């Protein structure tokens, strides 16, 4: 070995990281080379200095101060725990409410299109109506037929209301459903010489109301419904409650996340508020389901960074398809990031990454 070869290996030699064979070769060279010996001495001196660097000793005040901070933290801690459980509970109930509403929308639309025999109705709409809905609709029709005498009393009034209700409903149906709203029959434009049909149509049309989220339109239709004494009218407050709850949960979740990120890691991105409102709107209109992925606090920034590769970032959350989300979780696993998540199954999910 010449000097150049030996120099490259000297660091490893000093740190005992060369093989027995190489060690012998180096030592053989050192015997005959004062310059390399000097280099070895120099490296050893640095190594020893590093190993014997004086240490900062914990001062008494360190523990006292730490204990004070821990006392303050311990006072806040129980509150935080309660809030977490509460949040979980509300998240689940909100998801359940969304599911119920989605089913309600589906069945109400089917009922709506099926119950009025509009001549131009598309046959495929009939196929979409399931048997249960058909049976329910038939029962409802029978019940309503029995009430015809009372309905007759308000026929002329009904025609006016129907027009209003129909217009309002048409708008809502367009908002709520992805099914073609134009194909919804329009009994309101039927001539007034068919009072029975139009009168019986009123309660059915108002059935759509519980699926409605637009507060103003709901209350407008609600007044009408009360006048015509439709039995299903009492469903409405429940749906309104659900909607309010969804919003509150979303807001709460966003707020909570905000508190957590700022409390746990000062460098975390701020401005999480606003994400909640967006997510609730998205969840109701395009069925983007919301959930959180919880990772260890030290992994949050990495998990977020990975998430940004899988979907589109909006506010504090990332939107991705179910498939992307699965891939994302796999990548987390591959990166040895432990996680829990409460993201529901859905075509599109909106995921927020939070510290556990």
């Amino acid at each position, binding site marked *: 070995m010449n000097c150049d070869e030996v120099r490259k290996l000297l660091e490893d030699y000093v740190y005992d990281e060369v093989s027995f064979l190489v060690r012998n070769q180096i030592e053989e060279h050192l015997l005959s080379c004062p310059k390399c010996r000097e280099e070895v001495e120099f490296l050893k001196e640095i190594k020893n200095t*590093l190993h014997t660097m004086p*240490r*900062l000793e914990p001062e008494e005040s*360190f*523990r006292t101060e730490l204990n004070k901070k821990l006392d303050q933290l311990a006072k806040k801690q129980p509150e935080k725990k309660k809030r977490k459980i509460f949040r979980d509970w509300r998240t689940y109930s909100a998801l359940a409410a969304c599911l119920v509403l989605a089913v309600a929308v589906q069945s109400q639309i089917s009922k709506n299109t099926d119950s009025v025999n509009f001549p131009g109705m598309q046959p495929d709409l009939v196929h979409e109506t399931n048997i249960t809905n058909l049976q329910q609709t038939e029962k409802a029709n029978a019940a309503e037929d029995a009430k015809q005498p009372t309905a007759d009393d308000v026929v002329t009034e009904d025609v006016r209301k129907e027009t209003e209700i129909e217009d309002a409903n048409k708008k809502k149906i367009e908002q709520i459903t992805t099914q073609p709203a134009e194909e919804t029959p329009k009994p309101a434009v039927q001539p007034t010489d068919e009072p029975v049909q139009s009168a019986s149509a009123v309660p059915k049309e108002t059935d759509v109301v519980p699926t409605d989220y637009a507060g103003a339109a709901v209350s407008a239709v609600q007044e009408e419904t009360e006048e015509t004494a439709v039995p299903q009218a009492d469903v409405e407050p429940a749906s309104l409650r659900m909607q309010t709850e969804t919003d509150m949960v979303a807001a709460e979740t966003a707020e909570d996340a905000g508190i957590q990120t700022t409390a746990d890691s000062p460098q975390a991105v701020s401005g999480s508020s606003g994400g909640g409102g967006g997510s609730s709107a998205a969840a109701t209109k395009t069925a983007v389901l919301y959930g959180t992925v919880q990772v260890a606090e030290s992994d949050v920034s990495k998990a977020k960074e990975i998430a940004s590769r899988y979907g589109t970032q909006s506010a504090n959350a990332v939107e991705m398809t179910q498939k992307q989300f699965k891939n994302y979780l796999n990548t987390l696993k591959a990166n040895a990031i432990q996680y829990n998540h409460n993201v529901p199954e859905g075509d599109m999910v909106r995921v927020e990454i939070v510290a*556990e």
Partner: protein
Amino acid sequence: MDDKTLAKIQSGDRAAFDLLVEEYQSQVINIAYGMLSNREDAYDAAQEVFLRIYKNIGNFRGESALSTWIFRITKNVCMDFLRKRRELVSLDADEENAPRQDIPDHRYSPEKSVERTELQRLVRQAISQMEEKYRLAITLFDIEGLSYEEIAEILDCPVGTVKSRLSRAREKLKQFFLENREHLH
């Protein structure tokens, strides 16, 4: 730290948590000192580290050694401190959109140092002027005496990367020594 004590800490037992602080405070403070090269900052950072440990110990599931987990938090806290320092520096310099870079730390002041010999002072000064990743590698390996594997786990990078960083760090140290040799003896 045995499992029983850990379980107690996780259930919020402050006396048990005290044992953890007792066991790790010296290492945490000195890793922070290696990273921040400033006594007061090192103590402040160490306080923050133990507060974070206290808050998050419930999430520790034993996938890594407790010490690895603690040192990872230490690293993160120190990085936060350095980031804040950088922000202050860039605010002072009024540089908007300045590219992210490692700014050598010149806050090290020999007169307040704990180092006793000239050589030790030079080493500390050299470390304080290295890029963060080299500073961290040399602090964990040479000063704290952790293994390559443990450092790799803390830094979340392959062992090979740890070795090459160490090598670069020592190279810089050597360079610094050669440049400042006249201060020695």
